[in-house]
């Protein structure tokens, strides 16, 4: 059938089984929104207040569900507003297809109204991007974009469609199933999905010597440690990872992105490593003699001093992205490949080990906190976990994010939605909204945010209110940009330059303005009651927790120090 480019785009999104897109209309995407209007029975659209948060919502949708998120914005400022969201998705390997309109090709390059070279601008922060110059290429470009976004190491892909391409007509041939996998997959080893059949056999043959070597290192180790990251989630290798830990009788530590891979309830799980890692995790890292790193990229926040990182250990690095090998840390052995495939192959080569003493030693470092009446973050997060242990929790960035990582016991993958790599303040509300929309059962999602971060995205309260998206916003209000204040306290002589937020707004009045229920709490029993009620009700609402301005994130390792030398306990 003959369709215009805009209609072909929407049909291609439906081909990919996209249920919900997030976006904001404008001059250069009018044809797209017109075709969307005609297909509202087949695809949902969530209108946000700002394009950035539409981008974060698509990202949160992808992180929570594993499906590819989609976001639409207009040319010029609409497109540039996406930049932070794209970079956030890129740093955390989140599959999102960003679609932007652009001015007609006849006007491109003339500095016309709302014109911006968004494909040029986003080259460094996308896995790939396209400027579609002909309607004949559009359908295949969209299919390729989806394929690239989710294959190999996932990431954002941007498709920029000039308005004349949206309006031009061509024959559209619907595709489904395997037909949707573009030809490029054969040529591009790094754009592969998990190998199957013939490809798997070929991979096995190639990886065999490395697998053997890895099995040998594992057999020889006395103090093995498994270090898991976001790649394990992406690959869906949770069971294999835990099985390997059981087989080797090894403890597990995690990156921020890997939290939930091994349930916090599992005795082997020592928690997060790095700058705000647990004592147990950081000390185990420095004492182990074999580090098995799976789906991690050895970020500087996890490593501390790279030269003093895991000083006694041989390192096996398993990652799908060959460029991560030997980038930040030199490894003894690397296996490039999909985490689940590699772990499965390894499991068949490793026999049961017993390292009871090492396990006990590693476990002995886990902290037991003293309890008092002080209203503090740890108790709030503890209460949340008691009331809703499996709930999806999104965060913004700052102290509240680290407290959440430390004190909420994550029990499943994709439970924590947080901007790890880019550290984007303002990520949370959009992401929480996207995560909630991705859940077909419509369960509520918690957003833990700070007063600083929340001021960057509170405009989206209108969106969750309008659509009734069940996001419970838990604001940690300490009246300051807490993480920056913490660094000013520790490293800049208590000079609190531009970090004190003594200027409102009154979040209760704000909630009221958006027609949402707001509750301000000063005690843990008040919080418990408010959160329990909110969770049971499953409606969007705000809970504001009044915290002390000098509350700190501990433990802490100063940047660039070995991760077992804590500057704050």
């Amino acid at each position, binding site marked *: 059938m003959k369709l215009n480019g805009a209609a072909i785009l929407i049909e291609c999104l439906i081909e990919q089984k996209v249920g919900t897109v997030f976006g904001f209309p404008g001059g250069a995407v009018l044809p797209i929104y017109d075709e969307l209007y005609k297909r509202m029975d087949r695809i949902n659209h969530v209108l946000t207040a700002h394009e950035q948060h539409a981008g974060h919502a698509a990202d949160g949708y992808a992180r929570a569900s594993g499906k590819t998120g989609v976001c639409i914005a207009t040319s010029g400022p609409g497109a540039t507003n996406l930049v932070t969201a794209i970079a956030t998705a890129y740093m955390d390997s989140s599959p999102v297809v960003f679609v932007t309109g652009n001015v007609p090709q006849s006007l491109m390059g003339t500095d016309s109204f709302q014109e911006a070279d968004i494909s040029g601008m986003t*080259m460094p922060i996308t896995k790939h991007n396209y400027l579609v110059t002909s309607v004949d290429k559009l359908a295949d470009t969209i299919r390729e974009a989806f394929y*690239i976004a989710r294959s190999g190491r996932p990431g954002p892909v941007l498709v920029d469609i000039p308005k004349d391409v949206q309006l031009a007509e061509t024959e559209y041939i619907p595709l489904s199933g395997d037909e949707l996998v573009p030809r*490029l997959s054969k040529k591009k080893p790094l754009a592969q999905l998990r190998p199957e059949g013939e490809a798997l056999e070929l991979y096995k043959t190639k990886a065999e010597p490395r697998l053997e070597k890895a099995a040998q290192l594992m057999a020889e180790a006395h103090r093995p440690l498994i270090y898991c990251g976001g790649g394990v989630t992406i690959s869906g290798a949770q069971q294999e990872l835990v099985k390997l830990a059981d087989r080797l009788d090894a403890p597990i530590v995690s990156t921020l992105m890997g939290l939930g891979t091994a349930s916090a309830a599992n005795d082997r799980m020592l928690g997060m490593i790095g700058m705000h890692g647990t004592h147990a995790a950081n000390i185990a890292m420095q004492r182990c003699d074999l580090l098995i790193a799976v789906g991690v990229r050895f970020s500087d926040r996890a490593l501390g001093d790279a030269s003093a990182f895991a000083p006694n250990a041989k390192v096996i690095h398993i990652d799908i992205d060959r*460029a991560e*090998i030997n980038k930040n840390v*030199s490894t003894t052995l690397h296996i490039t490949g999909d985490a689940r495939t590699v772990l499965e192959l390894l499991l068949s080569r490793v026999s049961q080990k017993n390292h009871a003493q090492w396990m006990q030693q590693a476990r002995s470092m886990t902290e037991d906190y003293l309890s008092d009446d002080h209203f503090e973050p740890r108790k709030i997060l503890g209460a949340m976990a008691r009331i809703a242990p499996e709930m999806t929790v999104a965060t913004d960035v700052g102290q509240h994010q680290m407290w959440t990582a430390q004190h909420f016991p994550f029990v499943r993958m994709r439970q924590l939605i947080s901007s790890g790599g880019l550290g984007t303040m303002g990520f949370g509300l959009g992401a929480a909204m996207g995560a909630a929309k991705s859940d077909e059962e419509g369960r509520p999602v918690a957003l833990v945010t700070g007063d600083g971060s929340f001021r960057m995205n509170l405009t989206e309260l209108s969106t969750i209110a309008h659509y009734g998206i069940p996001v419970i916003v838990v604001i940690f209000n300490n009246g300051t940009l807490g993480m920056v204040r913490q660094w000013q306290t520790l490293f800049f002589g208590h000079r609190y330059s531009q970090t004190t937020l003594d200027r409102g707004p009154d979040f209760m009045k704000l909630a009221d303005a958006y027609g949402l229920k707001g509750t301000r709490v000063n005690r843990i029993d008040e919080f418990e009651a408010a959160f329990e009620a909110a969770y049971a009700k499953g409606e969007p609402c705000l809970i504001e927790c009044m915290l002390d301005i000098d509350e700190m994130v501990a433990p802490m390792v100063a940047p660039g120090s070995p991760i077992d030398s804590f500057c704050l306990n």
Partner: protein
Amino acid sequence: MYINKDDQQRYTVGVLVDNEPGVLSRVSGLFFRRGFNIDSLAVGTTQDPEVSRITIVVRGDEQKIEQLVQQLYKLICVQKVQVMKPRNSVERQLLLVKVKAGVAEREGLMRLVDIFKAKVLDVTKNSMVLQITGENDKIESLMHLLGDYGILELVRTGVVALERGDDVMTSDIFD
């Protein structure tokens, strides 16, 4: 990571890429972003009109070059990357140079043209345009010698290189 200058070597890297708009920008942007210094860059289409070949000369240590190769492979437009071993490859660049050449200098210049197997492309009363092809060292040394006569204008292409022998670099890859 700090790179000791002494460890730095010159590497010639061949890259087969999709012949599409923006590809050069993607590749050169990557070099800039990841902190590689490009000594020379040359690009042109191949016998397959859908494939272009880029030759890049960079400096770095072995680890850095490995990282560069892997980062290049992450670009969807990149089909194949090959770091060429100096002993096992031939490389050439081309130089066009306009030198000051009156009656007095012409004879001496012609001798240099002979020695370096250069070509004279244009002669006027006051100047000559010479062409020379060769490896980097040869080009550099001619430039040095021509300095005595006065170089008026100069342009050189980037290095292009091929491996010796029967092996060919194709986009048919699986490694």
